[in-house]
């Protein structure tokens, strides 16, 4: 069956948008604070789908959340959440995915390029989320960093390592699927 590239990527983008939504619910207990897989799927969308389709997946996820579907962390949704104190992190996902996808494509999808892309992507999320949190709650900068960034850095480092490993495993699989689907 000849499946067009557009249709395949449309399905993959929707799948990643759903994975990002579900990622907020899949918690891995590693200590007192469990790790949720949401940002890991965001970064993987950038690396596996590229700039265009990765951004489309994030756009769809935010659109569904804005429409009121319970896809944001904690089973919430709606414009209130998107424009609320943690809205900066959510809106920061789109530029983060675009930049991470761009870096990944430029570095030839090598392991060090993937890690660098995810590091810069994570920084963009914080660069958007922390100032938003600061202005929405009117808290000082030090407090905004203390509650909105520092506690998550270790978890983010672990997610980047796990995501780099998963992307390395999944890339050939997607390539094969593409070939099989195209030639079948």
């Amino acid at each position, binding site marked *: 069956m000849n499946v067009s590239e557009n249709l395949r990527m449309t399905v993959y983008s929707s799948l990643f948008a759903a994975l990002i939504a579900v990622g907020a619910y899949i918690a891995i207990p590693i200590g007192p604070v469990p790790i949720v897989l949401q940002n890991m799927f965001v970064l993987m969308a950038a690396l596996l789908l590229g700039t265009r389709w990765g951004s489309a997946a994030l756009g769809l996820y935010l659109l569904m959340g804005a429409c*009121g579907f319970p896809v944001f962390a904690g089973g919430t949704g709606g414009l209130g959440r998107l424009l609320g104190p943690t809205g900066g992190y959510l809106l920061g996902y789109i530029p983060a995915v675009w930049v991470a996808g761009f870096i990944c494509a430029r570095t030839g999808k090598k392991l060090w390029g993937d890690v660098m892309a995810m590091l810069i992507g994570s920084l963009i999320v914080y660069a958007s989320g922390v100032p938003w949190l600061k202005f929405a709650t009117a808290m000082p900068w030090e407090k905004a960093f203390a509650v909105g960034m520092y506690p998550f850095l270790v978890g983010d480092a672990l997610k980047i390592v796990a995501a780099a490993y998963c992307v390395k495993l999944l890339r050939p699989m997607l390539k094969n699927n593409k070939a099989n689907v195209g030639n079948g």
Partner: protein
Amino acid sequence: MGKSTQFSYRPGNFVLFRLDVRCKIICICLLSIMMAMAGFSHLSLISTVLLWFLYRSGINIRMLIWELKYFFVILFFVFAVRAIVTPGVPVPILQILGMDVFEIKHIDLLNHINITREGLVDGCKVVWRFLIIMIMGLLFACSTQASSLNVAVAWFLKPFPFIPEKRVGIMVSLFVRFLPMILEKANEISDAQKARCAHLRKNPVKKMKNITVPLLKRVFICADTLAIAMASRCYNEHRTEQDFLKSGYEFHFYAGTIAFYAFILFYKSPLSFH
């Protein structure tokens, strides 16, 4: 999400369930914007209307509060920060709560906390606004079918030249289709890992890898099967469009929204410091 929650769509006969989806989206967007200007009187009015809608939509308020528990934690945090950092007339809240001056002097942290009257009022107002926007989102989600939303999304995106509105519409319905499937697969994998004692592993990266890799492999296989099924049914973006169902009450909702806007503009709420 895979299970039925207070946020899931449920069939109903109340006017919200029969209303044109475009009307619902427009009213929610306008009301969300208006919330930024709303004072206590305006918030009381709209809260009363929304509570009536919740009751008529058959939503279990107790279950709803339970499902929103994490959201309430965020709201409390926002309230506390607003109460502390907003400048104004200090409120001796600890004395009111029954802690005497001696006790307070011996708790260093409490000496630095300066709760103000303006902060308390502002915190209440901000938290109330967020809560109202959240309830509007909930009412929309529980009264709107995914297929209607798909068509409405395509209709709204039509005027934008660089956005393929029908593709976005189909992505919306695929998204809704994938959510329960991913949760089901994640639960299956989690149970399989537990059966192999994988939850006793100490390495967090391995824990993540053990769940993520099989999950992604399985869902990508499902996505490929779906893409083939769509292609075999000659899927294309030039399909017959679904009609919008109208209840006949759309005008009332638009008029109500505009009337509420006029109420916000021309009636200044008491207890406003701005």
